[in-house]
């Protein structure tokens, strides 16, 4: 059972205090988007055996959404950061590369 640190309140939250929200850093497609682009946005998700960027809400705490970089096999957490972040921040990427030098970035 995971522990993730909420970047807003600093609480090391138990997984049971959190609500998962799927993949992070999706770009919203809407009216005007091609069928393919819209399908990608709505349905296509990364499913890596490795580093994954994901959305979590501190649902039983401050109520804020945040993002986490996590390894889906080892469950290592490279860091958490606010949801208002369009791309994985530099320090998070550095933390991942430090542990996984061969990691090539988000698919």
């Amino acid at each position: 059972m995971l522990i993730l640190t909420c970047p807003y309140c600093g609480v090391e939250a138990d997984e049971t205090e959190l609500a998962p929200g799927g993949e992070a850093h999706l770009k919203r497609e809407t009216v005007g988007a091609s069928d393919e682009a819209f399908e990608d946005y709505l349905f296509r998700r990364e499913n890596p055996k490795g580093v994954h960027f994901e959305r979590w809400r501190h649902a039983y705490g401050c109520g804020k959404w945040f993002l986490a970089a996590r390894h889906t096999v080892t469950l290592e957490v490279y860091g958490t950061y606010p949801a208002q972040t369009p791309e994985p921040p530099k320090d998070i990427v550095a933390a991942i590369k430090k542990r996984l030098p061969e990691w090539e970035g988000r698919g």
Partner: protein
Amino acid sequence: MSHRLDGKGRLIDRSKQLRFTFNGKSMTGYEGDTLASALLGAGQSVMGRSFKYHRPRGVVAAGVEEPNALMNLGRGGRFEPNQRATTTPLFDGLTATSQNHWPSLDFDVGAVNDMAARFLPAGFYYKTFMFPRFAWKHVFEPFIRKSAGLGQSPTEPDADRYEHAYHHTDVLVIGGGVAGLTAARAAGAGGAKVMVLEQTAHWGGRAPVDGGEIDGTDPETWVNSAVEGLENAQNVTLRPNCMGAGVYDHGYVLGYERVAETTPGDGRPRHRLWRIRAKQIVTATGAIERPLSFPGNDVPGVMLASAVRDYVVNWGVAPGKRTVIVTNNDDAYLTALALKAAKLEVPAIIDVRPTLMGPLAEKARKAGIRLMSGKALVGVKGKKGVTAVMVSDLEGKASPEAIDCDCVAMSGGWSPVVHLWSHCGGKLTWDDHEAIFKPDPTRPPLGADGQAFVATAGNASGAMGLAEALADGHEVGRQAAKAAGGTLTRKAAPKAAETERQPIKQVWIMPTSAGPDKRMKMWLDYQNDVKGSDVQLAAQEGYQSVEHAKRYTTLGMATDQGKLSNINGLAVLSDALGQPIPQTGTTTFRPPYTPISMGAIAGEARGPLFQPIRRTPMHALHETAGAVWEPVGHWRRPFCFARTGESDHEAVNREIVNTRENVGMLDASTLGKILVTGPDAGKFLDMLYTNMMSTLPVGKCRYGLMCSENGFLSDDGVVARIDEQTWLCHTTTGGADRIHGHMEDWLQCEWWDWKVYTANLTEQYAQVAVAGPKARKVLEALGGMDVSKEAMPFMTWHDGTLADIPARVFRISFTGELSYEIAVPANRGAELWEKVREAGAEHGIQPYGTEAMHIMRAEKGFIMIGDETDGTVIPQDLGLHWAISKKKEDYLGKRAQERSFMASPDRWQLVGLQTLDGSVIPDGAYAVGEGRNANGQRNTIGRVTSTYYSPTIRKGIAMGLIHEGPQRMGEVVDFATLDGTGTVIKAKIVDTCFYDKEGAKADV
């Protein structure tokens, strides 16, 4: 014959005699006994029957690994099956019955299976019960159901209570043996917050029985002083009777504490489940002795050598008068010496090793014990108890010598308990010298930071000697403190010494050349009746993976999960496959370490605390009024208010007729109420709803639809414009939290630069709907606000004071009648409800429930989220085009609704349905059309979404989604029934609105 020895067992108090019953027979034991030691002490060595062959079985072990002595304990609400006698502490009044036999333990009809053992090999069930198919249901299954299974199921609710507790610690030590205590001392000295779990009631593990010397004193004295030191340390918590059940991700551990097992009914929780978060975990879980596989090794009286020693030393119980030792290692010599010290006979030690030169062998010789080197035990005489053993050479070629005895103490070496290390991914390595799988410290379980969070200590590490184990425990404890944020203590490890040991010889079965006949009598897994021959057969039949072989043979399954059988089983499998043991590997270790009670898992979540029940401020009043409750999410809402002698259905009809003719009142407090405010709130709501909310004038209300990004209808409700920047959004009862979360998600994660705040005010207000032609009169009687048509027209709201209570009144209608919804602070909700009822009395007001509300809205053709929608329905399917803005560039779901299949004319569309004979279409019925599908079923052309008896038009009415429905007005369609006769209910497609199409009644 097992019996109690004179003199004192170290764990029992002979001054406190306890009475208990076994299979109805009264027996006595002492405080400190386990049920197993008490039974042995009372001369009861047969404790159960085996699972498959119903062979008589005695106790084999003295701890958690026990496979045979499983008991039904207690009675009625305290009945519990499959409890190990070896871990059940004796208490006065305990009742136990043995399992798996019929009609009695002594005479068991199922034992015929034993005669047929030749015909019940591995995979028997898979092979035999395949064909003919009918035979499974009518012949095989009833027989197997009767004869299989371990204990009985309880039939009454559990009379005890249970609870959870959370704990946070730097270092968690699992296991209170000498290695665990040493680790705890070192971690505590390093300043870490430490918790130690010990599954038994006693500290020190095996050391006080096995002897040796620690820091110049005997182990028991050392343990007492170590425990005292830890008890006095502020940063250390000791938890006896608490088993580390499982290790999970990110340092999560479940501890299973047996709080009040020996004092049933004393009011304390029986068990407590600890939910522990530890930065570092030290598993000092010790080791478990392995049996040896020889013919007849399951006859009662054949036991683990260490268990024999435990019974003698700990409980003053002798499992037999004459005990033969059979071993492949030095450890069993301790048993021989302990028996001798207790003045019991040891006619021989049968040792597979060719030369016996070590100091322990020397001690045994000096004690006058006959040592038989290079020998094997090749047969056991006796059925319900050992009478003699047959000894031959290792290969079993020499003609056997019979030795009379009533107990066999066997030792196949020791396996480290690696379960908790393995639960969360720790890997193992094979140590050929010790013949053990032990933790590989280079491949530990990894935590959130990518670093190891579990380490093993002592025997669990594979450090099998006392001195080694303590040195390991000390170092592991030091490092754990450091890794958890403490320091490395400079204190030295305890110094230990014990008699030097000679190496083990890897012999797994004896005689080594045993053929099929002998292998058929060699038990590997006692609990599941799996023998050497079964594993060999599995290998022959191609089950090469250890995981497959386990499931095919059932080796290592059920309540003991192969604690005794695993290593022997996979050694035999490896032998059959002609490969080394490490290549075969082990099966997966999964939590819990030993079975834990369902009560502990449930904790407090039973009875009234099973789930949160959400109550409105008027809940108690409804209860008094005889409400029939309906769960709506976690809420309880009155389904109807049935009067004495009235059926629920009659009550619902009365409530509807009264509301339509006079006036009704509904507790609408559960509706979601979300405040949305800010300069961008209008823009935000325009994105959220399919229709336009930004243009709603202050003081007015508008019905709106919300869709998911997938285009599907997700919620609906009335939105009120409060001021220039503020809207109040009503949601469905079940939708309040979900929609509030949905709003926050979009505001925080997509449009975070928009200036909007939300607040979920659902619980701030109690809300009462007053509906019916006389509704206005009721509000006028309450007094305080002008509720006339002119002052408060349809779809407006006003703040004011009603009956001296600050109120917000909405003129909205879900019934089609003249209707007001009155919102007041929740703490005054009950007061409002009473006042409305009093004020409405002279107008014939009656409360109505959710069912009346549902029917009245269906009569009006209003949709209900969850009835007309199911996550695949878009607003357009429901003819709600009027609520979808054409002007807006975008809203959530708009792009999705443009997809070709969303615009398809083939989508089923909402229509009203009126049965030709006035009956009610069954819930969920499908409309069937021409032709049949590939399965020979009639093709479906639609389905019913809401269906009721309407007391207003006195007929069955329904709404449904029908292919091309709106184009087929007046047509009659067939609805299938489930009575199997192929009959259909005929219904005419009509408008969805059955009542007051013009809406005149609501707008008066």
